[in-house]
C-alpha cells in the first residue's frame, strides 16, 4: 500500500536503520553467548540454548552490515534536505497523532479505566481529532453527534460481545 520512498531518502533511512540492526545483531550474539551452557548438568554441548540465537545474531548483524555498506557506497550517510520536509509533512502529523491516541488507549485507558468509559472516549476523540486534521477546522455539530454515536455503539457492542458472549473479564474494572 505504501509508496516506496525515493532511492536517495531510502538510502539515508537504510544507513541509520542498518546501524541499529547491526548493533542489535551483535547484542543478540553477546547475549546468546551469556546464556547458560548447562555444563554442570553435563548436557550435550550441541544442545546448548544459545546455539541458534547466536547464529541468528550473526545472520542479523551480517545482513545489517551489508545494507550499511551499500548505503554508504550510495552516499546515504550524507545529511539530506528531505529530512526536514519529512518532519513538517501532514502525513507525519497524522501518524504521530494516531500513534499518541492509540498508545494512550492501549497502555493507559484500556488497563486502568472501565471499558465502557475508556472505549467511547477513545473512539470519540480519535474521530473528532483526525477529522479536524483532515478538514483543517473544527468538525461541525453533525460530525460531533455522529462521532459520539459511533463511539457509544462501539463501546456497548464490543464490550457486550467480549464480556457477555465470550466471558472475557476486561481489565479496568
Amino acid at each position, binding site marked *: *500500500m*505504501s509508496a*516506496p*520512498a525515493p532511492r536517495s531518502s*531510502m538510502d539515508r*533511512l*537504510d544507513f541509520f*536503520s542498518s546501524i541499529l*540492526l547491526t548493533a542489535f545483531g551483535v547484542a543478540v550474539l553477546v*547475549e546468546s553467548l551469556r*546464556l*547458560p551452557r*548447562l555444563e554442570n548438568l553435563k*548436557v550435550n*554441548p*550441541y*544442545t546448548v*540454548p*544459545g*546455539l*541458534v*540465537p547466536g547464529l*541468528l*545474531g550473526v*545472520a*542479523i548483524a551480517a*545482513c545489517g552490515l*551489508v*545494507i550499511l555498506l551499500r548505503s554508504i557506497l550510495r552516499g546515504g550517510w550524507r545529511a539530506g534536505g528531505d529530512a526536514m520536509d519529512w518532519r513538517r509533512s501532514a*502525513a507525519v502529523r*497524522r*501518524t504521530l*497523532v*494516531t*500513534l499518541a491516541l*492509540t*498508545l494512550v*488507549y*492501549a*497502555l493507559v485507558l*484500556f*488497563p486502568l479505566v472501565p471499558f465502557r468509559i475508556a*472505549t467511547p472516549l*477513545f*473512539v470519540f476523540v*480519535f*474521530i473528532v481529532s*483526525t*477529522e479536524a486534521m*483532515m478538514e483543517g477546522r473544527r468538525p461541525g455539530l453533525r460530525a460531533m453527534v*455522529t*462521532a459520539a454515536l459511533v463511539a457509544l455503539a*462501539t463501546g456497548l457492542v*464490543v464490550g457486550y*460481545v*467480549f464480556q457477555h458472549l*465470550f*466471558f*472475557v473479564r476486561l*481489565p479496568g474494572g
Partner: protein
Amino acid sequence: MDGLSSFLSALIGIVTSTALIDVLWATLLGIVVGMMPGLTATLGVALMTTLTFQMEAERAILILVCMYVGAIYGGSRSAILLNIPGTPANAATSLDGFPLARAGKAGSAMAIATTGSVVGSMIGMVALALIAPLLAEFALSFGAYEFFWLAVFGVLVAGQLTALDDPIKGWLAGFLGLFVAMIGQEGIHAVPRFAYGSTDLAGGIGLLPAMVGAFGFAEILTVMRHEAYEVVRSKVDSVWSGVRQAWGYKMTALRSGLIGTFMGLVPGVGEDMGSWASYAAARQTSKNGSAFGKGSVEGLLAAETGNNAAVPGALIPVLTLAVPGSAPAAVLLAAMIIHGIRPGPLIMVEFPDFVFSVVAMVFAATLAMGALGLLLTRPLLLVLRVPRERLMPIVFVLCTVGAFAIASRTFDVGVMIVFGVLGFLLRELNYPMAPLILGIVLGDILDKNLRRGLVLSDGDLTPFFTRPISAVLWLTALVFIVLTMPGVRRIFTKLTGRWEKTS
C-alpha cells in the same frame, strides 16, 4: 474413495446445518474486510481467531476459512473501484481492473474478478484434496535434518520472493522473526532465553498478538499516514456480461489457477506472488499482451484467479508440514493449534477426516463468495463509503481487546503495540512482513531440529547435506536464491536475450 466420502459427509454437514449461516456471514464479513483499504486478510483472520477461540474446533476453523477466502476476493473491489488494492494480494488486480472501471465497465470488471476468484479457489481446492494426503505421507519420512532445512528454506525463499528487489531485507525480516521465536523458555532444557526475569517474556511471544500488531496496528498507522481515498461514485454496469467475457479465457484461468496454487504452496509466499506470477505468465503468453495494464480482461482474470488459488494452496503446507504458505495461513495454523488440532505429517493418522473437512470448507466458502459477490455488487459499494477516520478507531479497539482476550494478559496488548510500531517502521523501510511472521512460526522448528540433528550426528554436519531430501531442500533453496538475485537475474536476462537474437 475414503477421501471423497469424508469430503461429501463434511459438505453435507455444512449445507444441512446452521453451519451454512456461518458460511454466509463469515464469507460476507471477509469480503467487507478485504474491500476496506487498510484491513487485510491476515488482520481479518487474526481478529476472527480471537472472536472464535471459545467455539468448537470445526465451527471456528470453518469461520476462519470463510473469512480468509472472502477477504482475498473482497480486496479486488477496492482495487477495481478505487485503484487501491484492498489487500496486498490484489495489487495486480488494480492494473487492469481500474482502467476497466474508468471506462464504465466496473460491473463487468467485478464479475470477471469474481469468476476468476471462484475458478482459482476451485483449482486450489482440488489440489488441496489431491496433494495434501500425499505430501503428509511423504513428510512422514522427514527427520530432524529435513525439518531444519524446511524451516531455513521457508524463511529464505519467503524473504527472497516478498522482497525481489532487495532480498537482503526479506532475509533480515525472516531472521528477526526467527529471533522473536527464541524469546521464552526453549523446548529442550526449558531454559528461559532473553526473558530477563520477566515471567511474561519467559512464556514467549504469542503469534496472534504479534500478528494483530504487525498487520492491524501497523496498517492503521500506515492508512492514517496516507491521504484519504476518494469515495467511490462510479456507475456500475451489468455484471453478467463479465462472466461471459471471462469464459472466453478458460485456458488463462486454468494456468493462473495452477500457478497460484503452486505459489501458495511455497512457504510464506502466498497470495501476493500467486497473483503477480499468474499476471506475468498471462501477459507473456497472451496474443494481446500490449493491452495489459490498460484494461485487459485476461490480465484481470489472471490476477484474481492466481490470488484466490493461492488460498487453498497455502493450506497444503499448513496441514501437512505445519508450515504456513502465507501470512493469513500462519494465523490459521495458530488457530488450529489453539483448537487442539495438530497439523503436520501425522495429520492423516491423527485427524484423517480433517483435511477433507477443510476441503469442504473451502468449497462452501467459494460458492458463498461467488454468489454473494455477484448478487450484492451494488449494496457492497456502501462499504467503500465508510470514512477511515471512523473505521480505524473501531479496528484499533478490536485489535486491543482481541490481543487481550486470548490469554487475558495485558502483556499481550503490549506485544501488539510493540509489533505494530515495529511493523510500521519496517514497512516504511521496505522490509516485508510475511518472512517476519513465518520466522516466528518456524523458529521453534528450526531451533529444536538443528540441535536434535547435531546430537544424532554427534556434531557432524554431513547428514544435513547428504541425506536425499535434505540435499534436495538446500540445493533447491540455493539455486532459487542465486537465480533470483538481481545481479544474476540481469546476467541471465542478457544471456537469454543474446541467445534469442542468434537463434
